């Protein structure tokens, strides 16, 4: 087995005597784009700081390219010089943009000619070339972010850490920065580790996602896996599975199971045995609404009344009360075609294969 570029073994971190990161075992592979997603306060920044060797873990070990860099000072500096980090709230030094971007190279004692060439290339990549002589302290938030990215790129890192690279930016700056990142990811052979609380950004940019909550990595996998088959209720909630129904498996016919959700029976595909307490996860976009019952092959059809309707962008979210609340998403167009309105009677339908079953953990 080839060794991962960065590997953590049971690392934990505590502040003021309290563990805020527990037993994290994570492998970052050379060349991949890994996104750490999780809600605010989950420990994303703390984990990135441990991986970038800005902090020494309270417990566990960190390996970089096969070296144990947990607490050896000179090895840590050596390893750190092969990485760079764009902080969540980037700061610039009180000097010109050029000198800011040159800092990392000067500290590595590169030649002035090399520095000049690498700085201008990094600034071009970040679309900041025209600001080269400005004092960096006079830049706007989005410009500061891009200088910080250029500064991190200039040292040609093997691993680039990005902590919420687009948080607090408007949509245009966000897409500009995502463009820059997509370029780096596509163009260079840099390993990228980013933290974000934006699931869709993770999906757009990452090869692999790790979901972190309360200082623990709950699940790692491809964006598709995380999105379609979350393994825990918390992950499901976080990735936008709005229908999480608790029930018990009451019948089984090969792999087709029947689940009792407080008196309502739904059918799904699962390996769990009869009697197992489970969550049934149904994505709102997998539910169709119709004015009358039709004879589709879908096994689950429930009659109910519309409890709430609210528009979200070009879509409409519809909450149907059918013995249990079911959230569906339809386009504005079909909401009009169906003339959906509060209190109107509808039939909500979803396939047995659209239901993802996970064991209840508590």
């Amino acid at each position: 087995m080839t060794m991962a570029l960065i590997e953590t073994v049971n690392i934990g971190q505590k502040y003021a005597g309290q563990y805020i990161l527990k037993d994290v075992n994570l492998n970052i592979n050379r060349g991949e784009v890994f996104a750490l997603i999780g809600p605010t306060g989950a420990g994303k920044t703390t984990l990135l700081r441990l991986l970038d060797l800005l902090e020494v873990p309270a417990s566990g070990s960190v390996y970089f390219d096969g070296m144990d860099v947990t607490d050896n000072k000179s090895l840590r500096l050596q390893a750190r010089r092969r990485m760079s980090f764009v902080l969540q709230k980037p700061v610039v030094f009180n000097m010109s943009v050029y000198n800011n971007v040159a800092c990392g190279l000067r500290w590595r004692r590169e030649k002035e000619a090399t520095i000049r060439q690498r700085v201008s290339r990094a600034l071009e990549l970040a679309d900041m070339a025209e600001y080269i002589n400005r004092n960096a302290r006079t830049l706007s938030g989005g410009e500061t972010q891009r200088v910080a990215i250029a500064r991190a790129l200039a040292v040609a890192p093997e691993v680039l850490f990005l902590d919420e690279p687009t948080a607090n930016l408007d949509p245009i700056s966000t897409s500009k920065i995502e463009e820059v990142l997509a370029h780096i990811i596509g163009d260079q052979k840099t390993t990228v580790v980013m933290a974000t609380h934006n699931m869709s950004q993770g999906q757009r940019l990452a090869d692999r996602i790790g979901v972190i909550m309360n200082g623990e990595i709950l699940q790692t996998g491809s964006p598709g896996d995380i999105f379609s088959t979350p393994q825990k209720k918390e992950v499901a909630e976080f990735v936008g599975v709005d229908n999480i129904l608790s029930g018990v498996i009451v019948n089984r016919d090969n792999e087709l199971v029947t689940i009792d959700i407080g008196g309502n029976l739904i059918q799904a595909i699962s390996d769990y045995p009869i009697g197992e307490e489970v969550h049934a996860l149904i994505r709102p976009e997998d539910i169709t609404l119709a004015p009358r019952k039709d004879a589709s092959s879908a096994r689950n059809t429930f009659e109910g009344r519309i409890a709430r309707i609210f528009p979200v962008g070009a879509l409409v979210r519809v909450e149907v009360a059918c013995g249990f609340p079911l959230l569906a998403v339809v386009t504005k167009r079909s909401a009009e075609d169906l003339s959906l309105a509060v209190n109107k009677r509808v039939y909500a339908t979803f396939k047995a294969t659209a239901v993802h079953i996970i064991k209840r953990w508590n």
Partner: protein
Amino acid sequence: MTELWEGLVTAVKLIISLDPEVMEIAGRSLAISATSSTIAALICLPLGAVIHSNKFPGKRTLINIVQTLFSLPTVAVGLFVFVLFSRAGPIGGLDIMFTPVAMVIGQVILISPIMLGLTISALSGVDKAIADTAISLGASGLQTAVITLREARFAVLAGLIMGFGRAISEVGLSLMVGGNIAGFTRTITTAISLETSKGDLELALALGIILIVIALVINLVLNRVQQR
């Protein structure tokens, strides 16, 4: 009253005519205080960076003590240096009592707490993210200290100027360990305090005016620096 007025007129004439004695004394004052400020700065900048960037037990207490020493009485330092270097003292053999060297040593002791304390507080005014950024970009411990000092440069410079101001304006210490020897250890402040009592009011007034001008210049520079 007329005596004072005539004294003032003569004093101004002494300054305008660049009287050799006045110039020599003023020049010596500046040289001694500049030397002690430079030495103190060379000690306090690195020491301040080390104290700032390391965690150790008693750090808070140490900083408190340093701040208390800001108002160290000049005569106390004078007494200390006197005891240390006088013939009977532990290193009396060096024979530096009543020389500019003793004065410089005394002034370094006097102003180091100010420079050290203000350097540390200047550094703690720098965003913690500056050091993190430097470290993440591959800076060593020394390189991180240098960039942090650079970020705090105006506040650090203000601290150094404060130290120089204290050195050039103190009198008790210079008198005790320098001895106001004409042409050797006589400085603006020691000359004023001793010549006044001897009745040489013109010289004292001229030197007093120069000292006030120096203090004014220091304040102007300090204001400019602190406004950055």
